[in-house]
């Protein structure tokens, strides 16, 4: 790096250097470089928003339908007809299903590692769960498509047979593969390490004295967790769920492989229905024309905005935690 060239020849603190311009120049250069690097983070975030907006505008102007309420995605037809309604629905619905499954399990894993497993094993167990985060999403998609789906289909059929009176479990199309539930299940597995790692982090921060206070009052282990751990960790747990949600919303390749694109809003989770922002971009990109790409960029902008809001709220919730812990 450029700074090294300012370095005086000897490393000893020579009196000349202390008052010398070289030192101040060195310090100033270094401060400048590192500040610049920090600034770059803000610049990149701003640039993402600016460029996506800029390149999205042409397609939104060309759109003959309402961008927010239209369900069709035909940006390259004449006139272009497209909107994000179905994408928004599919993205949120699959992510919510993933959250409903992954959040309780993720909390359970975190509790297991923090309070139930042998202390010596804890870091190894945490590492094993983190390995799940290391599996590339394309592999989740491949495995989901060829190995997991054959088990999800009978499960979906069971749901619709015994719980079909609840509308979301009903299946009138007799289509079972690549359903919303399938995508939700795979997304749940994918966000599990996120949810469990962050909640584990807050669980192990619960002061030992609160844990002991609860036990000394005659609480069982579970009562101790409810009395001392959950109240203390609530903001972190909420944050963990939201960061998991953020990851599920933006997941692309696995969803592209295991959710069949249906351009309708269909709440029945055992059937295909809806589509996701990210998967739609990945699948439509190759064949899209100029307006088509601009339209996909516009939908990417909406996804960027949604994940931004989710992630910012998650960080905001966990940042408040530091204030309330107070004198303890």
């Amino acid at each position, binding site marked *: 790096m450029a700074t090294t060239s300012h370095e005086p020849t000897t490393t000893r603190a020579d009196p000349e250097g202390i008052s010398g311009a070289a030192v101040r120049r060195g310090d100033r250069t270094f401060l400048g470089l590192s500040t610049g690097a920090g600034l770059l983070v803000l610049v990149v975030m701003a640039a993402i928003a600016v460029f996506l907006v800029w390149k999205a505008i042409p397609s939104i102007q060309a759109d003959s339908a309402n961008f927010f309420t239209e369900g069709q995605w035909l940006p390259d037809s004449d006139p272009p007809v497209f909107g994000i309604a179905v994408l928004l629905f599919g993205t949120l619905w699959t992510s919510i299903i993933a959250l409903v499954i992954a959040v309780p399990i993720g909390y359970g894993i975190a509790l297991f590692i923090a309070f139930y497993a042998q202390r010596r094993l804890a870091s190894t167990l945490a590492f094993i769960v983190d390995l799940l985060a290391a599996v590339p999403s394309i592999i989740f998609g491949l495995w989901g498509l060829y190995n997991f789906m054959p088990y999800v289909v009978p499960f979906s059929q069971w749901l619709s047979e015994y719980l079909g009176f609840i509308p979301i479990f009903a299946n009138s199309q007799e289509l079972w593969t690549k359903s919303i539930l399938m995508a939700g299940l795979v997304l749940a597995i994918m966000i599990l390490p996120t949810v469990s790692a962050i909640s584990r982090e807050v669980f192990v921060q619960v002061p030992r004295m609160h844990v002991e206070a*609860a036990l000394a009052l005659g609480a069982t282990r579970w009562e101790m967790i409810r009395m001392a751990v959950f109240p203390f960790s609530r903001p972190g747990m909420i944050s963990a769920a939201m960061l998991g949600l953020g990851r599920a919303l933006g997941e692309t390749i696995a969803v592209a492989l295991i959710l069949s694109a249906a351009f309708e809003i269909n709440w029945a989770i055992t059937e295909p229905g809806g589509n996701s922002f990210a998967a739609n971009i990945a699948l439509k990109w190759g064949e899209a024309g100029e307006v088509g790409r601009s339209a996909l960029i516009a939908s990417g902008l909406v996804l960027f905005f949604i994940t931004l809001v989710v992630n910012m709220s998650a960080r905001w919730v966990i940042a408040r935690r530091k204030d309330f*812990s107070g004198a303890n």
Partner: protein
Amino acid sequence: MSKQIDLVDLDIYYGDFLAVEGVNLTVKANSVMSFIGPSGCGKSTVLRSINRMHEVIPGAHVKGAVNLDGENLYGPNVDPVLVRRTIGMVFQRPNPFPTMSIAENVIAGLKLEKDKKRKESMDEIVEKSLRGANLWEEVKDRLKRPGASLSGGQQQRLCIARAIAVEPQVLLMDEPCSALDPISTLAIEDLIRELKDRYTIIIVTHNMQQAGRVSDDTAFFNLSGIGKPGHLIEVGPTAQIFSHPEHKQTEDYIAGRFG
């Protein structure tokens, strides 16, 4: 209501490490006993083994018996949860639950047991327990405020109120004043003298004067070296231990020659 405690040939372990060896000790009902001794001698460990809090640390276990009016706390079928309900504990640093109000802190232990036959309402128990901890007058107008909003000494009395709300027979106190200023310390000491009418109390303290002021009996623990187990050296009426100890070690410690 209060009970006598007998420690019988008690060996206390952390994993394979023998931390305290061969303790035999009797604490009379309705008396206050102090545990004194240099740091690391195992006095807190002994205290924690009396309400089975010791075993909360992974690998920690004991051999021997702790008898509460003759019933071994480590006997088969004994439920540690019930032991801890019967033998309350107050810790070194005040530890009210930070997310609970003053009143919620007091009844935190009681709410675990949904006892429909209880005659008193929760409000009455809150008042009774806070009065019992000499805290009622100071907090009666702000029961809904967080427990952490109190001063250190008040928090410690809140923790005592929380411990006595479940109506234990014995109170264990692990250096309850070491984090407090002198005024708060006096308030706690006054409280201990009042509480002994209703409870058997064991207090671990580093403060010789405090042991002299509050306790009827004193037990002195020591260890012969780093890595060696701690032992009970001597136990007796506080006045006797302080004026005519039988052991040279006790005398040296009390005279401030080590520890």
